[in-house]
């Protein structure tokens, strides 16, 4: 038998074995989330509408993040600008010029004094909003140690920040000294996203291109748990509001809900019409709804318990590239390909 034939037979075997394992796993469980939730009354279709348009960017919006006060938003776009908006006043507060146009994500610190952004330049640059010199905001710190692009960054507090990178590692930094405290290197693929556990400053979850998501302990620097189940790169990770579960979005066109205490996947959110990957996920404050941003620029709203599509956010020429739910759960902001930010409520 030629090598190709042998490879294909082995692949078939692997597939079969995988299916058997999954079958055994599901047989062990008493029931699935879907069946348990079947007697819960279905959700009324939510009427989400665009309430505010924020215009001002000159390029596609690559990342958005709400501040803790649920009023300020920071967004980064292809034109090399990071803009801080006031959502209720609908105006721009700060506009920061970046050194590199290719920014992937931006974040607000809980105190709202600092803004961080990272991208293809392998650096996580931190800006201090309270120090404005002649109308320009200068770089506060430039955290350089990653050997790959910085895909995501999240502040723990004003002194510490965690970043995930395309060099397959995550790093916890001390901002004041600009040096790294711990390095989390256990993934086998580019780490695409991370999220801090709400209510617990010692844990965070990351999703990577090796189709696994990992839970890390910040103090010891070790991986506490690994969750498998996805078939392809995981693009986005977001904790469930109570912190005991997290949702992931992947290139295999599914979102999955993983439970930390159960240590396994709870539910898969997909349907046959969806063929493209998910690039961002966000939970509503109750946790009943999950917003998933797709690679074809659409947004689906999933019922987390029942596992079905409740709505698809429609708006004329709405091409969503990133999204985020505010801390108080009152609004959803979406960043779009056509340079606008839209706030839905």
């Amino acid at each position: 038998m030629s090598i190709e034939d042998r490879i294909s037979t082995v692949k078939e075997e692997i597939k079969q074995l995988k299916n058997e394992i999954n079958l055994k796993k599901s047989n062990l469980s008493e029931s699935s989330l879907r069946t348990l939730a079947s007697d819960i009354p279905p959700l009324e279709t939510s009427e989400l509408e665009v309430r505010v348009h924020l215009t001002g960017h000159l390029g596609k919006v690559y990342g958005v993040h709400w501040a803790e006060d649920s009023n300020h938003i920071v967004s980064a776009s292809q034109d090399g600008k990071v803009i801080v908006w006031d959502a209720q006043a609908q105006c721009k507060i700060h506009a920061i010029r970046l050194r590199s146009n290719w920014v992937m994500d931006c974040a607000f610190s809980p105190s709202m004094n600092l803004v961080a952004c990272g991208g293809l330049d392998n650096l996580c640059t931190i800006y201090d909003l309270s120090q404005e010199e002649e109308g320009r905001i200068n770089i506060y710190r430039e955290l350089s140690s990653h050997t790959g692009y910085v895909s995501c960054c999240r502040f723990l507090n004003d002194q510490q920040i965690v970043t995930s990178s395309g060099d397959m590692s995550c790093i916890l930094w001390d901002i004041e000294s600009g040096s790294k405290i711990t390095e989390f290197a256990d993934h086998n693929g580019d780490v695409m996203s991370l999220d801090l556990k709400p209510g617990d400053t010692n844990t965070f979850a990351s999703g990577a291109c090796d189709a696994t998501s990992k839970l890390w302990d910040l103090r010891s620097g070790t991986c506490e748990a690994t969750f498998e189940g996805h078939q392809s790169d995981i693009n986005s990770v977001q904790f469930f509001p109570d912190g005991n579960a997290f949702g992931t979005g992947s290139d295999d066109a599914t979102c999955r809900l993983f439970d930390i205490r159960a240590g396994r996947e709870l539910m898969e959110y997909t349907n046959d019409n969806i063929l493209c990957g998910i690039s961002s996920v966000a939970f509503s404050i109750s946790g009943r709804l999950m917003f998933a941003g797709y690679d074809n620029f659409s947004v689906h709203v999933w019922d987390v318990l029942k596992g079905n599509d409740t709505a698809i956010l429609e708006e004329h020429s709405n091409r969503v590239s990133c999204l985020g739910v505010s801390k108080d759960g009152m609004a959803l902001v979406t960043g779009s390909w056509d340079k606008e930010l839209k706030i839905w409520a």
Partner: protein
Amino acid sequence: MSNEDILNKFAIEPSSDEPEEEFVMREYGNTGPKGVIADHAEYLEVLRRERIEEKKRQVQQSKKMVMNEKEVNLVDYLLQQRKVSINEKQQEKKKRLIENSDPETEEEDEKKKEEDSEEELLKMLDKEGILDEYALQRLNQIKKEIEPVFGTVLTVNKENFVSTIDNESPKVTIIVHMYDQNNRACIRINSCLSKLARRLTKVKFLKGLAKDLKPGFNTEFLPVFIVYKAGKFVDSILKVSEHLPKSFDEDDVRSLLVESKYL
């Protein structure tokens, strides 16, 4: 103006003036970090293509410059000839004025001028000098037609460039090498050409300093081969060293010329 009018005046209209940017959705990697990576790759691709276009344009321009050079020189040559004939005309006038010391009236002067121009034409044709010159040229041409044999690389400069090329029989291929003394490849080619010239006696090899023949020519494209046949420009090869292997010898140069069908 009412308040409404004022408000309308300052109302921001939806960007109808700006052309809608083309919305192109890729198959994979549109949003998120993968989208940024794909956008970056596209941007680099665009830059690379622009650079290639720019290079092409430069080569085209340089080629044009090489081709027109001979024509420009020809014009210079003809002008020179004309100057010579004008000078002679003036000299003859002086002679006549000296001979006829009596001052003449203007009318007569003009008549004489007309006569002079006719006479001048006849004189030009009858002029011994010109006929002789022509006879000599023709003789040389016939000689060369019978036996055009060379053996060395001749050096040309701006003045004799045109004449060296024109005074050749139409069967002979002329290869001009434009070089710069400081260019290593040029020096090497010159030595190869002198060896080749000894072997290929039927081909006329010329070499000239690029600074002299074509001042202002972009030295980046040296060495340059220009091929003439029957006094007409055939083709030019810019940056000959690029077409040859790193350490080339006269055989490589010969095969390059054979490949390009000039030999």
